């Protein structure tokens, strides 16, 4: 008897025009979120707050009620949604610039207040949609369109380690950094995303996952080389791991 081993998650919309660049990890990340929503059975009870950047089109893929926030304001809007509808599962899907640069105050304060929210942050070390400028997570030495000779301390200072900072907030229930560079790591990423939703559903506090992702277009690399960069350049600085999990420690 035939067994179905692969299917499109029910939480993904049908016939969507795929808007991400070839080889970009956004597609994998959105799919993982959809799979988790399916597995938790929360599609009809969830509200997404989308952000600005390549992440804005998330609502074109996920078949859930969705609100689009101005740049950096996703977690403020999510706070408003959740406080108005405490029984709903409310989550954001943001990039590193949205979450950790222009929206850092909203992000940190949502975690500090212990909002029962889930935040997914794609860290690709650049502003993808605008063509690859320096962002808050751009690595030292990394060449971007606004760091033409590489990120140096004199002009740009240090990149932010997001998952570690969010873990320091007392209202955070779960904070992890994951990568999508291998099948094994994609599986770990899904587990972390699921946990970030579960802590919200159980009312434990703020759930956060930082996902190390590729931007082959702006990195000017093949998808394969881009994943090599994630492993060799990003992971030594942005170390994957669970930085806080109040359900086990």
């Amino acid at each position: 008897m035939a067994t179905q081993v692969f299917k499109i998650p029910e939480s993904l919309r049908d016939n969507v025009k795929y808007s991400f660049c070839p080889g970009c990890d956004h597609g994998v990340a959105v799919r993982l979120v959809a799979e988790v929503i399916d597995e938790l059975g929360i599609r009809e009870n969830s509200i997404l707050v989308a952000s600005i950047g390549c992440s804005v089109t998330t609502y074109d893929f996920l078949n859930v009620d969705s609100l689009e926030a101005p740049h950096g304001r996703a977690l403020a809007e999510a706070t408003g949604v959740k406080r108005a509808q405490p029984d709903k599962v409310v989550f954001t899907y943001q990039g590193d610039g949205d979450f950790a640069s222009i929206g850092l105050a909203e992000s940190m304060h949502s975690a500090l207040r212990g909002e029962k929210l889930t935040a997914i942050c794609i860290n690709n070390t650049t502003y993808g949609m605008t063509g690859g400028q320096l962002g808050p997570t751009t690595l030292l030495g990394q060449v971007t369109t606004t760091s033409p000779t590489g990120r140096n301390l004199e002009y740009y200072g240090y990149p932010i380690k997001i998952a570690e900072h969010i873990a320091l907030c007392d209202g955070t229930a779960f904070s992890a950094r994951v990568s999508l560079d291998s099948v094994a790591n994609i599986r770990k990423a899904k587990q972390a995303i699921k946990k970030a939703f579960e802590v919200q559903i159980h009312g434990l506090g703020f759930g956060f996952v930082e996902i190390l992702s590729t931007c082959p277009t702006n990195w000017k690399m093949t998808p394969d080389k881009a994943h090599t960069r994630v492993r060799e350049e990003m992971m030594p600085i942005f170390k994957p791991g669970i930085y806080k999990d109040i359900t086990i420690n």
Partner: protein
Amino acid sequence: MPECLTNKKVLTKGNYAIANAAVLAGCQCYFGYPITPQSEIGEFMSGKMQELKRAYVSAESELAAINMVIGATSTGVKAMTSSSSCAVALMQEGLSYATADELPVVLVSVMRGGPGLGNIYPSQGDYFQATKGGGNGDYKLIVLAPSTVQECVDLTYKAFYLAHKYKNPTVLLADGLLGQMMEPVEFYDYPYPEIDNSKWALTGAKGRDGRIIRSYAPLADNQCVFLEKLFQKYKTIEENETEWEEINTEDADIVLVSFGSTSRNVKTAMKLLREKGLKVGFFRPITLFPFPTKRLAELSKTAKKFVTVEVNMGQMVNDVRLAVNGACPVELINKGVGAPPSAQEIVSRIEAL
């Protein structure tokens, strides 16, 4: 701190009157950040909303506060924030998005002196900020301007109603004088019908596809269609909701035009000038958008002169000039900031014209 009162006449401050009225109007969520001269609104709400098991958040900034209101109203509930001048400036981005998202955001703006940090004295310097907008793109906010503490109550109710009826951000534009002044007021039950929002609110996609509340319109043609629809709505608002007060305008040679707290001394000045035998009328826009352009244009056929009185460097006077459209002169009596000119001062300046 006053209790939430209904069907009672009490002596209270404008800020408390607004907050109490918002609670009675069924405001489910308050998000705010302190700023003088409106901090009493947030203080009142922090206690009352928790007591009633409604939502209250001390937001990390005005940016966050207005976006929390956007989030809450996207689910269909009544929600508000309150702020003042230099901090309302921080909310302009959110207000632009809320018009594009067509969300019933309510903002109470209690004006103080500007530009910059300015001062905490009363001012009408944010007429432009409220009616012309500081956010990007083509949009309008519905703007209601109370002149008494009682109107702070009446127009707070109305702000929630109009915001939901038209799915458009609505501003109650008060000032430091109204916010801090005590007057007898009467509270009553919310007098407007509740608006059905089940067709658009985000409540979880139960048995249906997910709804998207968005302003992003990648294609120019789609955006043109949306803007036409948006401005058709503003036309409907102008036709249905324009509100003003006018006294002794029928035979008036001079029509005094003023809004908000300033209009009170102007009304007295009109009476004093009538006693002196001058044919002076009084005209007070209550809705600043929609502005009573048509009625002012009608009056310009019989009046010989309009004089606007404002506590700013001359903002509403521009809208009066547009309405009058050159039919007769439009003068300005103003001061930059602080308590409005006294009735006697207005009388003297009219006589000197």
